[in-house]
């Protein structure tokens, strides 16, 4: 029965092909060839992106001698979890993960709530000099933080509010190394890529119809209440994705962390120091100055990187929609 149907279908295909003078066949072959090409291309590129992660996973389970063995490429000959133990010890893993979680989470919440206020202000109110201030936002996006890093460094090293502290204690406060400066900067929308968040949130609020807000005003809602009750619930997708970005970028950020949070153990800073800590660990172990071998450094480094990636990766797996979909649907326009 099915064969007959298939045959009929088949014959009708050839018949249709004959009627269209070979056009149908040509088109079908073309589309199949395109599909195959696309598959190969995408597969190759996906592999290229994922390969370093796979490589790190396999290296992290290897002993050092496996790395020197040309026979061993992906599957370790001497399976070990020693690398994880050592890397965790070197990075003070549990402590720095907790620190990083707390810092990234609070910073992300602070940044996004402030950026939402500012973005809403830019999108929905008319006030004098609005264009000028928005140009300032664009400038914040454009100026690399490195340009002002020197001065910020000094600013917080000799921190003072209008000379009050100097008058009282005779000395300014050295805020470098504490967490406070970074929170202050985040509260002022000057954290990592905050201009970008303001821009995206403003873009989102601009697309919400004006009538919604006007109806709320007519019904006697105040400005703040309208914002909290009407606008915020609508903006959940863009806020989620901004929050996720803020969290993740803060998690891996090295620049601000090194500049301001030097004394707080964060995963990002301890990862960038892991080679040095390995050297000093070996020195303590053996009593003499030794430079760790290339293989060992690689083992530890890929294990450390992996251990830092894993929490973010889990977050990404669960919140993938939050990252990608809301961004591509809301649309970023100039």
């Amino acid at each position, binding site marked *: 029965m099915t064969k007959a149907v298939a045959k009929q279908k088949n014959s009708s295909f050839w018949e249709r092909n004959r009627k269209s003078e070979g056009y149908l066949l040509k088109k079908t072959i073309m589309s199949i060839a395109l599909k195959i090409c696309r598959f190969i291309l995408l597969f190759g*590129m996906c592999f290229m992106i994922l390969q370093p992660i796979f490589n790190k996973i396999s290296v992290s389970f290897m002993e050092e001698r496996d790395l020197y063995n040309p026979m061993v490429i992906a599957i370790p000959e001497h399976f070990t979890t020693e690398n994880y133990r050592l890397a965790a010890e070197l990075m003070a893993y549990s402590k720095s993960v907790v620190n990083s979680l707390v810092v990234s989470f609070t910073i992300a919440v602070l940044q996004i709530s402030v950026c939402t206020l500012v973005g809403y202000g830019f999108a929905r109110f008319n006030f004098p000099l609005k264009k000028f201030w928005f140009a300032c936002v664009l400038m914040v996006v454009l100026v690399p933080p490195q340009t002002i890093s020197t001065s910020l460094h000094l600013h917080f090293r000799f921190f003072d509010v209008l000379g009050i502290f100097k008058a009282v204690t005779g000395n300014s406060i050295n805020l470098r190394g504490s967490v406070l400066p970074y929170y202050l900067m985040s509260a002022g929308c000057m954290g990592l890529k905050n201009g970008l968040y303001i821009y995206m949130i403003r873009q989102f609020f601009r697309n919400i119809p004006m009538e919604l807000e006007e109806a709320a005003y007519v019904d006697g809602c105040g400005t703040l209440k309208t914002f909290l009750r009407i606008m915020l619930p609508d903006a959940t997708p863009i806020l989620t994705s901004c929050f996720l970005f803020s969290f993740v*970028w803060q998690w891996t950020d*090295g620049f601000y962390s*090194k500049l301001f949070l030097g004394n707080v153990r964060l995963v990002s800073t301890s990862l960038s120091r892991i080679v040095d800590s390995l050297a000093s660990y070996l020195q303590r172990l053996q009593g003499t100055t030794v430079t760790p071998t290339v293989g060992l450094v690689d083992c530890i480094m890929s294990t450390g990187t992996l251990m830092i990636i894993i929490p973010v990766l889990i977050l990404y797996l669960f919140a993938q929609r939050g990252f990608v979909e809301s961004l591509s649907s809301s649309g970023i326009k100039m």
Partner: protein
Amino acid sequence: MKKQKNKLAGLQRRKAIAGYIFISPFIVGFLVFMVKPFFQSLYMSFCTVEVGAGNFEPIWKGLDNYIRAFRIDPEFTRLLTEEVSRMVIDSLAIMVFSFFVALILNQKFKGRALVRAIFFLPVILSSGVILGLETDNSLMAQVQVAIEENTTGMSITAAVENILRTAGVGVRAFETVFEIIDNIYNIAISSGIQIIIFLSGLQTISTSMYEAADIEGCTKWESLWKITFPMISSMFLVNWIYTIIDFCMRSDNEVIEKITKVMVEQINYGFSSAMTWIYFLIVIAFVGITSFFISKGVYYYD
């Protein structure tokens, strides 16, 4: 009549005040953490900064730091030219790559969500410190050497490269292309956001436009250039600016590394400010000039 007008003005004023209250965090932050450090670092770049116990004191030195950056420091000019040329080539490659990938990912096929997720993965995984570690991965280099030894140095790409090199025509151009191809991993991992921006642009183009073109006998190739390209040309501008800025902030940028080293280890604030300003001015000039030319070609539909 007059009273009513006043009332309206009052409402507008109230709204203006509310607007200012909403953006006040930004204004405060901008003035304190942006404007002040911005001009301070400009000033410091003309000075030698003496750091004392309780304070710091800039001493005016004129153009000394700038002269030092260009004429005395052995590394800076080399790093600067290297980074700027890398920025130009890489940004161009990123634009082409992300546009191409966005075109593919906009089509309908099985597993599209998975592929999108994978392409977007580098945005979160290869940011910040992880990127810096990735670049000097000596193990990968070792593996590469091992593979090359085993395959006696012959692969299809190498053969093609050799043929093109000995062809004698446009060798310099080919070298640049080879460089980009060798660098394809770096380009792929730094084009996540750009792909998303292009995708969001592609989704705003209405399908009726393609249908109309199709009925009129327009091939896919023609409609790519006549419809898709103009419709998302504004995205090219956004992406171009974003790519360059993103490139400046990457942690594996050697100029930035040099600046941080001078600032944190040698505690030479004046010199490091001067270097940052040189770099910043070059980048801004580049962004300004190129986006001026790109914006001339941008087509706005509405």
